[in-house]
């Protein structure tokens, strides 16, 4: 199933699983909930905690009530999670990815008018394959001093991500999809990825398909990012390019992100850290989580609410009167949130 998937037929509120996260997570989640309330968005939040627990058989898993809530609502909004060091279990993000088979990571990067960066008019989307590639985690020591890491590319995963990319382009009125690769060096693996993209492109003749080497994309991206539209690529290149594009518009504090899984599951998240040094001090910037929530509304087909909240947010930033510290001001998170709530109500 593509597109939105949790429309309640009787018109009641849509349920969304909310994972506040750690550090500044709870306060920015509260900010987002307040803004949604001011916008009267038909969303019912179900808060859950995803700290890993050891399940039967000794395998780490997310708590069953969190999984049950996600399976039912199909849509999730997640704040930043603490990376465990020596906790004995893998990263929470990895666990979530495996549990819900989140195969596509989507990051729309749009220049925020009012938050000046050297790059203006950026309007592109990076779609990254999120399950295999260089991050399979398969490494061996062959002999002492020689290490081998395996990059895995499969036909199925490549086809799936290519199909998602073209569907996204079609559903969001984007005109072209560019596959990013290094098939001149990694002939078989990136060659397979490229072949699958080409095959899927045949079924989407209304969307223009181009291919470009990773190095050429990087070179052109920092000189003229306006030439790019939708980019689809394997895991590692996606990791690097999506962060590069986030840097173009102002960093992780203002970049939304969404993870699409099989069975219609979608989890939208802010990709910045937990910022433990400012946690609980009402100084955090909720923009990233808010824009991810807007992405979520659009995914669910609630474009009006999404546009309203996004306009209010951008107007507040453009006005420059109540900006948080990382955006260049010295207001509190609650003041920033209140301003957006006021604008949302005025827009009604």
């Amino acid at each position, binding site marked *: 199933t593509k597109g939105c998937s949790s429309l309640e037929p009787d018109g009641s509120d849509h349920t969304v699983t909310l994972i506040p996260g750690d550090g500044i997570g709870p306060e920015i989640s509260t900010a987002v909930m307040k803004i949604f309330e001011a916008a009267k968005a038909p969303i019912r939040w179900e808060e859950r905690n995803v700290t890993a627990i050891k399940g039967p058989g000794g395998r780490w898993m997310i708590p069953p009530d969190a999984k049950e809530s996600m399976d039912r609502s199909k849509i999730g909004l997640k704040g930043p999670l603490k990376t465990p060091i020596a906790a004995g279990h893998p990263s929470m993000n990895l666990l979530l990815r495996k549990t819900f088979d989140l195969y596509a990571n989507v990051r729309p990067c749009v220049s925020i008018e009012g938050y000046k960066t050297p790059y203006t008019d950026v309007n592109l989307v990076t779609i990254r394959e999120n399950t295999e590639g260089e991050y399979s985690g398969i490494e061996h020591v062959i002999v*002492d001093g020689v290490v081998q890491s395996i990059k895995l590319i499969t036909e199925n995963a490549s086809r799936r991500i290519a199909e998602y990319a073209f569907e996204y382009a079609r559903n969001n009125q984007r005109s072209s999809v560019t596959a990013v690769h290094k098939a001149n060096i990694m002939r078989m693996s990136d060659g397979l990825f490229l072949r699958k993209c080409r095959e899927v492109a045949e079924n989407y003749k209304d969307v223009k398909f181009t291919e470009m080497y990773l190095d050429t994309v990087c070179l052109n*991206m920092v000189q003229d990012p306006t030439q790019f539209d939708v980019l689809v690529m394997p895991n*590692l290149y996606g990791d*690097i390019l999506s962060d*590069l594009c986030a840097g173009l518009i102002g960093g992780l504090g203002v970049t939304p992100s969404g993870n699409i899984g099989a069975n219609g599951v979608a989890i939208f998240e802010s990709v910045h850290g937990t910022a433990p040094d400012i946690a609980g001090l009402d100084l955090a910037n909720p923009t990233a989580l808010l824009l991810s929530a807007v992405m979520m509304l659009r995914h669910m087909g609630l474009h009006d609410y999404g546009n309203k909240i996004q306009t209010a947010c951008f107007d507040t930033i453009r006005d420059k009167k109540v900006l948080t510290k990382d955006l260049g001001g010295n207001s509190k998170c609650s003041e920033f949130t209140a301003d957006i709530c006021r604008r949302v109500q005025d827009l009604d």
Partner: protein
Amino acid sequence: MAAHSAVLSVSKIINPFWGGRLGNTVKVFGTTLTSHRNKTQRAPPPAKYGGRHTVTLIPGDGIGPELLNHVREVFRFSCVPVDFEVVHVNSALETEEDINNAITAIRRNGVALKGNIETKHTMPPSVKSRNNLLRTSLDLYANVMHCQSLPGVQTRHQNIDIMIIRENTEGEYSSLEHENVPGVVESLKIITRNNSLRIAEYAFRLAREKGRRRVTAVHKANIMKLGDGLFLQCCREVASGYPDITFDSMIVDNTTMQLVSKPQQFDVMVMPNLYGNVVSNVCAGLVGGPGLVPGANYGRDYAVFETATRNTGKSIADKNIANPTAMLLAGCMMLDHLKLHDHASSIRNAIFTTMNENRLHTADIGGQGTTSEVVQSVMRIIQSKGQLTAEF
């Protein structure tokens, strides 16, 4: 000390079974290694035949041939004592005869100047990238690129001065791929202790030579714990032998984000092959594009010079609009390597005067000049400085 640990690891690999038997051989081998490591300047190949050097020239595809013709034109005009031995490599052929001839020529002459050879990926996977083959056969383990903001070129960021040292032979470019099950392809990324130590050593030595303060290692060791973890560990070991230089590390995705917002924070960067590809292209884009930055590939015995971003530029070939700066500056790097410093400086100054004072720019940096106009200007400036030149 880094050299000692290198000797130890070599001995561990060479004599796992023979214990002390090969000890003497290893000691001799080890000292040769150490003495090579301590040499700051490689001796250039001797000038034969009346003080003239012979350099292999590989035209390549796309804009390569025309730009290298311009380099030859400028060299001939400035009476540079270099003769070029031209070796053509046909990228459309499946046999490796052409590239092997080129490699033999470089072994003979010791130095080469090349354009990029296209890799057609419609060919079967057994036909490997010719450029890669050249680099690995000659063991050109260090790719060095110096990105500097030029006053005459308008860019979004100013005051950039970054040296990028990229491991050039292994990592993701090992070309080891197989398809065990139909539809599932595995590609191997190899990181070895030897090569990581070698490149780290090169980076720190170069940093010290050029008086740079900080070396940053770029990696993804949080995900590739063994592979990039080994690379990072080797860098740390080498760093301990250079207490005057600060060493830090940064994850590659954060690095690209920092590069597009605050590139002035970086000094010298060292990294494995693929991240080097990404970072060097980002930096080249930041200072003005692929037409401006030269690159060098150094091995123990050979050196090959080319443009830093290795573009074929097929779409602008033979149109007289390509920017000759990168290739000309690569030629100057080559002259410095051959210890022909006066010629190198005079050509380099002429290029910078054309770019920064005369502001004669080609289309890629926002101007309307043609390639030949830029080259003529360079030659005119060299002549005006009063040096010996051939007829115009």
